[in-house]
């Protein structure tokens, strides 16, 4: 595997890397319409003009949603907005998508949530108040119901966060089509019913959930100082930046899911871009989360039962997002995060980010290769709902519980042994070869950590 800066015997040429094909030729025309002046280079050498780039970007967003067919018409979807470029772009796309003519209009009902993480990042109360005020300004222009929650509210979460409610099986394509057709018919009849008044296309949606009456959740004031203090102490007690980042991510996810559940949202959309997901994939491998890669980096994450996390921006690279935001004036707010101005080696995340981006500069297909690999990860089917204890941090069946899949002949015992997310048959065969698990796993045996590699092997089918 190539390494940046590695010497292969003869000295590597100093100075800028050799020109990549197509870039230095500086084609004066857009590759798509052959007419416009190109403004941005996507991938390796495809120059797009402004309008073609916009069409390309929007099309990708719609295609990802359309291809996966998970969001049903009329569904309530919570958009997780951090203020950063990717999530702002996502919110903007949803805004634009909802306002199109009826044939191509997006058909779900959005809400927006912003989590104020100032306490974890060590921001002063004045700075936090200023940031929240800025966010509020933007949120109010959107027209969706919005929620601003402080991270301190995570102390008030009930254990119901971990409850695995009955999972509805992911509908087949037929179900989706049926749902869309019936929704369209409903719209049509509504339109003809309102003979007198102006049958605007949004009337149908307003019947489902009038945005005016939905309360936008505004924090009454800054959270109690005791909670802020407790949160700062909590983060202060975490020794490494890597652990802090992971912890923050987990808490934020729990909080967003909680808000989604209490307000009746069935889907959550996060703005993870292609580049971020590639970095996340490599970081998760380094941190030992290989078993959950398919859920962590895939389009949908159904581990939480009734609320499904969806990632519509996963086809867009950060470069495309940044260009789009600049060219089409998408409002976004930069807030200092927990790792702002951290040096390169401060955490595994930063290190991986630096590595991937440096590699990308020399080999422009790096990020897309990692992304394509992540697409091939298969989520192993679950054997019903986990009866065993669930891990608080990862919202998945406790690590010790995953071995029951190997002991196919044993009945699922009430010990931590139910609900194996791994492929049952194949893994068992594989496990018999590996040392630590032994040839058969009796019920009372707890797994060694070395068995995690077999889970990753079972999960990755390339």
């Amino acid at each position: 595997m190539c390494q940046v800066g590695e010497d292969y015997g003869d000295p590597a040429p100093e100075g800028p890397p050799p020109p990549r094909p197509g870039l230095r030729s500086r084609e004066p025309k857009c590759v798509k319409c052959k007419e416009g002046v190109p403004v941005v280079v996507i991938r390796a050498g495809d120059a797009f003009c402004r309008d073609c780039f916009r069409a390309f970007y929007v099309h990708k967003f719609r295609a990802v949603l359309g291809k996966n067919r998970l969001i049903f018409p009329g569904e309530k979807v919570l958009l997780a907005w951090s203020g950063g470029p990717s999530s702002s772009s996502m919110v903007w796309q949803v805004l634009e998508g909802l306002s199109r003519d009826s044939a191509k209009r997006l058909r779900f009902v959005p809400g927006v949530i912003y989590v104020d993480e100032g306490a974890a990042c060590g921001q002063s109360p004045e700075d936090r108040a200023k940031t929240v005020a800025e966010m509020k300004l933007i949120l109010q222009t959107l027209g969706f119901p919005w929620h601003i929650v402080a991270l301190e509210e995570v102390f008030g979460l009930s254990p119901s966060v971990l409850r695995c409610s009955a999972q509805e099986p992911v509908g087949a394509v037929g179900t989706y089509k049926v749902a869309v057709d019936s929704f369209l018919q409903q719209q049509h009849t509504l339109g003809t019913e309102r003979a007198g008044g102006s049958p605007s296309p949004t009337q149908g949606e307003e019947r489902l959930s009038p945005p005016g009456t939905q309360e936008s959740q505004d924090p009454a004031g800054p959270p109690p100082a005791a909670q802020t203090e407790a949160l700062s102490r909590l983060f202060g007690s975490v020794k490494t930046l890597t652990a802090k980042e992971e912890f923050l991510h987990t808490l934020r996810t729990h909080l967003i899911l909680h808000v989604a559940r209490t307000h009746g949202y069935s889907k959550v959309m996060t703005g993870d871009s292609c580049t971020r997901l590639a970095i996340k994939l490599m970081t998760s491998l380094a941190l030992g989360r290989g078993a959950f890669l398919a859920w962590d980096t895939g389009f949908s994450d159904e581990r939480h039962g009734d609320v499904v996390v969806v990632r519509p921006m996963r086809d867009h690279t950060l470069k495309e997002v940044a260009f789009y935001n600049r060219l089409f004036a998408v409002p976004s707010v930069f807030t200092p995060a927990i790792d702002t101005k951290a040096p390169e080696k401060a955490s595994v995340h930063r290190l991986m980010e630096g590595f991937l981006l440096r590699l990308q500069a020399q080999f422009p297909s790096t990020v897309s290769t990692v992304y394509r690999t992540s697409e091939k990860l298969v989520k192993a089917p679950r054997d019903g709902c986990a009866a065993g204890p669930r891990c608080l941090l990862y919202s998945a069946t406790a690590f010790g519980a995953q071995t029951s899949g190997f002991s196919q002949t044993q009945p699922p015992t009430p010990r931590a042994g139910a609900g194996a997310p791994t492929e049952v048959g194949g893994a068992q065969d594989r496990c018999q070869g590996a040392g630590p698990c032994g040839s058969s796993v009796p019920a009372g045996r707890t797994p060694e950590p070395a068995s995690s590699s077999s889970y990753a092997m079972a999960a990755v089918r390339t």
Partner: protein
Amino acid sequence: MTLWAPPLPLVATGSGREGRKFKGISCELGFLNMAAPLSVEVEFGGGAELLFDGIKKHQVTLPGQEEPWDIRNLLVWIKKNLLKERPELFIQGDSVRPGILVLVNDADWELLGELDYQLQDQDNILFISTLHGG
């Protein structure tokens, strides 16, 4: 426009132009091989402004110098004059750190030659950081 006397001996008739690389702006009286002072706007976004005292837009006047101004020289100038802290978070080697996008007049710098693009007067150069936490 002032005429700068070139450092090498010059034949009075102006034929010293031969054999010398022609750079910069010429006027009817002769030629210049020094770049005139340039006025450009340098912008930072995506968190990069944190390294520049939080100021996003800087209107700068680059002094006249021997070689024409290109992005490479501009980066050196920025490092010396504008960058307040942590240069390694912005510049790596003689280019920007991977993850920082450069736009010249709202166009990708890859289309313009990256570091070798020669600056024009009133250009707008924007640096957007796509890195986590600026």
